[in-house]
């Protein structure tokens, strides 16, 4: 089961990467620059966040109490391999563009794999459908981030063999612990989507052409 899961992860990552749209390397000084694709990525994170709200609600109800209780506040045990959105404020603020994008890309790659694992185990057809739909959207987000990175000339992170996340339940991994892992996966996904909105907003501001140049141009034509 362990090996199967590792292979599953590897296959998953490879699939994700191979299905990325071939983005021609854009000239950085080109007409539009990466701005529109950053905006698109930002919009995708908002869309996914909305989608996740209903998906998580349904899934947590499926897990049952205490997971669907609003005050549920368990200690974070296990789920060590989940990519964590949490970061020190100053570190986050001072991330360079490449690192910011890379962290987002790697996080969603891993989260997508874990979600696909969740989908395989989900009991009801409706849940599987919702999860599959969400996975597709998430893959779209990955593609969008990849597009931005390519436009800016940053290389995509390549998974090294043997370093993929392995979703391997321990020998005594009970049903309850599995549900806890599911809970943290959804929580981390939600938090990452909030963080990404802030990340892409920051990138958007940095990429904006100086507004002054545009208005001066209009003014020169006189009224």
């Amino acid at each position, binding site marked *: 089961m362990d090996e199967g899961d590792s292979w599953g992860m590897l296959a998953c990552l490879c699939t994700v990467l191979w299905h990325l749209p071939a983005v021609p390397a854009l000239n950085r000084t080109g007409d539009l620059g990466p701005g529109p694709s950053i905006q698109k990525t930002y919009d995708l994170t908002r869309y996914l966040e909305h989608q996740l709200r209903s998906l998580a609600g349904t899934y947590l109800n499926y897990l049952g109490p205490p997971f669907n209780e609003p005050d549920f506040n368990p200690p974070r045990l296990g789920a060590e391999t989940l990519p964590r959105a949490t*970061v020190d404020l100053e570190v986050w603020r001072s991330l360079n563009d490449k690192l910011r994008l890379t962290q987002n890309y790697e996080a969603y790659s891993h989260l997508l794999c874990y979600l696909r694992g969740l989908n395989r185990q989900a009991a009801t057809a409706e849940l599987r459908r919702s999860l599959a739909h969400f996975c597709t959207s998430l893959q779209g987000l990955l593609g969008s981030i990849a597009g931005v990175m390519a436009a800016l000339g940053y290389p995509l992170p390549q998974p090294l063999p043997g370093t993929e996340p392995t979703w391997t339940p321990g020998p005594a991994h009970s049903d309850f612990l599995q549900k806890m892992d599911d809970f943290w996966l959804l929580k981390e996904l939600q938090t990452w989507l909030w963080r990404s909105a*802030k990340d892409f907003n920051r990138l958007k501001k940095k990429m904006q052409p100086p507004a002054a140049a545009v208005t001066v141009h209009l003014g020169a034509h006189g009224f």
Partner: protein
Amino acid sequence: MAAPVPWACCAVLAAAAAVVYTQRHSPQEAPYVQYERLGSDVTLPCGTANWDAAVTWRVNGTDLAPDLLNGSELVLRGLELGHSGLYACFHRDSWHLRHQVLLHVGLPPREPVLSCRSNTYPKGFYCNWHLPTPTYIPNTFNVTVLHGSKIMVCEKDPALKNRCHIRYMHLFSTIKYKVSISVSNALGHNATAITFDEFTIVKPDPPENVVARPVPSNPRRLEVTWQTPSTWPDPESFPLKFFLRYRPLILDQWQHVELSDGTAHTITDAYAGKEYIIQVAAKDNEIGTWSDWSVAAHATPWTEEPRHLTTEAQAAETTTSTTSSLAPPPTTKICDPGELGSGGGPLAPFLVSVPVTLALAAAAATASNLLI
């Protein structure tokens, strides 16, 4: 003959003064402080005096009726707030002060009300607390903040005694914060706690310096400007979006506009010559809730002549409803075209200004909806 009598008087007075002095300043007297519950009954013994000792009780210097006494003990039934005071019992004959009790009548604390809010995201948040009903006696509060298993420091506010501040160490945390408060006084104890995620308590302060100005030569326009709240530390990285509402003073129904950026907006469908009230609210682009409404700005659109009601002039005008936001605003009103005075026109989400020609076309279709 006159001389010895006044002299004897002086001596007696001096002696009396000396007795009173020793009574007041006897070494045993620091009054015993006692707290009792409102509505209860209390029996105050006269220190170590025997039950059958002859004593007099006084409260704040006023004698108490002997029918309150049970032997040498003072019995007070159905304590009221007015019973609070300094009770003293004296040996009846020598006026020697036997015992003093400073009685405070109050209540044990009920469950405190605790709330937390972040108006300075991502710097930190603060928590406020209060008791729903007064206790009439001093209370001490103790606040603890837990982030997972980590204890965080809540720094007391320098000005407000029921507030403390917590600084965020990390952002984008999946672990909830738990704030607990316990309150205790001499009569009892209570506590409560709340847990929340970092994102849910974000609520900025209202926008500041909202100013509305008429636009010269434009009888239907008002230019509104405002500033992001000064408490929001980083509008660049954590931009705010704004919600503007406006109405003429004489109408009840608000028009709403949601603005994703910028701190200015021009209203283009104001009724000519009518004084408007305008307010703005702010929200982080992605997380948290809307701020309270700002202080209102008032303005009247530019008019060419002294203002007086000309009903034909108003009937010819039309309004174009500017927006109805899809995001939950503080006052969720959707412009209802059927309602009088709402400025019924085609609903155009996120439309900020409508070209004049379109407005006139809409006027032709909806002129009958017009009012004032």
